[in-house]
Structures are given as C-alpha cells and as structure tokens.
C-alpha cells in the first residue's frame, strides 16, 4: 500500500515523516492518515491478537483503535511516538473487549463445561520452538498485562520506559510484569521439554549458552 503515499509527503527522517503525517491527519487529511494506518496496522493488529487470541476480535479492536486515533489525533501532543500512543489505544480497547469476551466465555462455559480453555496443557517433549502455534499458546498462558508487556518489549522492541508510557504503567510495574512473564514462560518451556526438545537450528545464538 506504499503506493498510496501522498505525493506531497514530506521527506526526511522516519520520525519527521511521521510527525508530518500526524500533523496533516490532525488537519483532516485522510490520505495522510491512511499512510499512518498502513505503517502501523500490522503492529496494532499483532498486539490486539496477542491480547485477545481471536482474529475477528483483534481486527475489530485494531480497526476501532485507528478510528479512535483519527477522532482524537488533534489531542496527540507528540510527547511519545505515534505508535506508543496508538498502542495505548489498542491496549485500552483490547482490555474492554477482553472483559466482554470473558463474560461471554464464562456464560458459555457454564453451558458447556468441556470447552477448551486458554491455558496450555503441559506436554512433555513437545517442540515449542518449532511450533509457532504452541509458542503462541505459551504466550497465551500469561495474563493480559504480561502479554501486552512482553509483546511490546520483545516484538516491538520498546524500552521499559516506552512500554510504561504505552500501557500507562510505572516502569517498576512493567519490570515486575516482565519478570513474572519470564518466569511463567520458562516454566511452560521447561514443561514442554525446554531447549533439549527443540530441533537443531530452531533458534540461533547457541554461543550464548553456558
């Protein structure tokens, strides 16, 4: 969709380009906002999916977040990056959605007690590293806040401070979530056989091993 870039887009550093796009969007330029959507849709959707584990719900939440961003872009002060601001909206929307889904799921579970939960059943010897679905299920065993923190810290490569800004959490809370998430993931990983159960070459960086 890069071909939809407006010809008048300012050239320069990515941050300057983004600031210009944000400014023009705030002035009502839908073409500029479209570029912002193109630039950030995968990340917004990815975060929403990590939190909700449902493609339709993630799509709805991510779309809703962009529409709300459009509505409120005039209030965006630029203290943080646009993506950090957008993640905050996605996070809030996803939390609202998760609460609705939880209520709905509880109702459905009351009717169908056999329904599969989100918790990962320990499977000794499973090849977590070679199976993205299993890895995602491992991530799903984290709390919503831990999933959000892990996604932004690792997948989006944000610093602890930036994660805190995006999720409106103190840095100490972000660190605590990260620490607990690592402990949970390591336990799940070990239950699934750990690094010994991974196929050769599933991950790089063996030099770092003890």
């Amino acid at each position, binding site marked *: 969709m890069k071909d939809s870039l407006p010809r008048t887009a300012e050239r320069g550093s990515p941050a300057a380009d983004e600031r210009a796009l944000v400014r023009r969007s705030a002035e009502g330029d839908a073409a500029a*906002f479209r570029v912002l959507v193109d630039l950030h849709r*995968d990340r917004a959707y*990815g975060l929403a999916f990590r939190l909700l584990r449902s493609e339709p719900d993630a*799509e709805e939440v991510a779309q809703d977040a*962009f529409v709300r961003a459009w509505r409120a872009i005039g209030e965006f002060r630029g203290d943080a990056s646009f993506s950090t601001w957008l993640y905050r909206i996605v996070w809030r929307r996803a939390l609202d959605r998760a609460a609705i889904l939880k209520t709905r799921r509880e109702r459905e579970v009351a009717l169908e007690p056999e329904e599969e939960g989100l918790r990962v059943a320990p499977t000794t010897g499973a090849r977590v*590293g070679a199976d993205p679905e299993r890895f995602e299920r491992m991530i799903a065993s984290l709390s919503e806040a831990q999933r959000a923190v892990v996604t932004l810290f690792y*997948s989006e490569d944000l610093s602890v401070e930036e994660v805190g800004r995006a999720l409106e959490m103190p840095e100490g809370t972000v660190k605590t979530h990260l620490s607990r998430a*690592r402990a949970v*993931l390591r336990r799940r990983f070990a239950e699934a056989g750990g690094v010994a159960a991974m196929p050769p070459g599933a991950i790089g960086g063996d030099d770092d*091993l003890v």
Partner: protein
Amino acid sequence: MIWCDGVERWLNDGMPPRDAAEARSHARRCAGCAQAVADAVALEAMLATAATTARPAPAGFTDAVMARVAAERDEAGVRVATRGTPATPPWWLVFASEPGAAVALVMVPAVAAIALFLPNVREFLVTSAQLVIASSLGSAVSGATAASADASALLNAMSPVARGLLAIGLVPLLLWSVLVAPTWLAAAMSPRRGSPPRSRS
C-alpha cells in the same frame, strides 16, 4: 557468590550484564541452573524473533479503517451542518432579545420600589400625572381626576403591608402586559408576516 535463587532472579530480570559472570559461573557447577539458563537463552531468542513471525493485519484492513473514518467525517459534517441551521429559539430568549423587555425589566422594579419605599416621590408623580391629564383633557375629565385623587387618598389610607401586597399583586399583571405587548407589536410590525415559510433545502 550467587546461588540458585540468585540465578533465578537474574533470569527473571532478563539476564542483565550485571551479575552475568557470577550467574554463569554458578550454572557451570549446577546442572539445574545450567538447564534453566539454556532454556532462558532459547526463550529470549524466540521472543525476540516472534516479531518477524507476527501475524500481519488481514487483507482489506486499511480500506475498512478508512471507510469507517469516511463515515465519521460524513457524520461530523452532518453535525456541523445541523449546528449551522438556525433553530427556533426558546421563548425566553425571544423575550430577552426584545428591547421593550429590557426596559420593562428595569422599569417594573423601579416603579414598584417608588410605590413602596418613596412616598414623597410617589405623591409627586401622581400629582404631576393628575395635572397633565387635567390640563390636557380639561374639565370633561375633572370627575376622573377627582376619582384619581380619591384613589390616591385611599392608597395613602391603606396600611404599608396592604400597599405592599397590592404592589406585589400588580407585578404579575405588569409582567404579563410587558411579555405580551412586544409580541403583539412585533407581529403587527413584522414585514415577514404572511411570507411563505423558508425552504430547508
């Protein structure tokens, strides 16, 4: 010296460079910690590479967002247009905007205050009015003037409380006449009277 729980904390903190040497040194002597460190390294690598394998947004995502944005803009445009359409103002606003209403709002309390609290001024005004009426209408209304003088005498004979109640009772009557009079005058003098209603298109 660092022990198993220290290694655990170090792993939970994301294996920072601080304490790394001690943790790795302990792990070389402890099989359980060596396994934990190896798992943690593998896990960190998986988490870091998860970004490249993240699901992209579904096809048509941007179009769907922009369609919703366009709908928002249209709705906002309708709201602005609606806001720009002159609506019928409430009766009190119409009343307040009449010049006569402003004059009445000042005059009515002034007259009431004079009638109640300034008897000398009241007497002067009543006498002046009687003289003006008598001189303009002549002896034909001398009876009416006498009646007016009688009314004035009657007013003076009343107790202050009774005079106050009478004045308060007259206020709604005065207000009613002030409210209705401008409307009648405006309706009578309006050039738009009888003109066809404005088109909404």
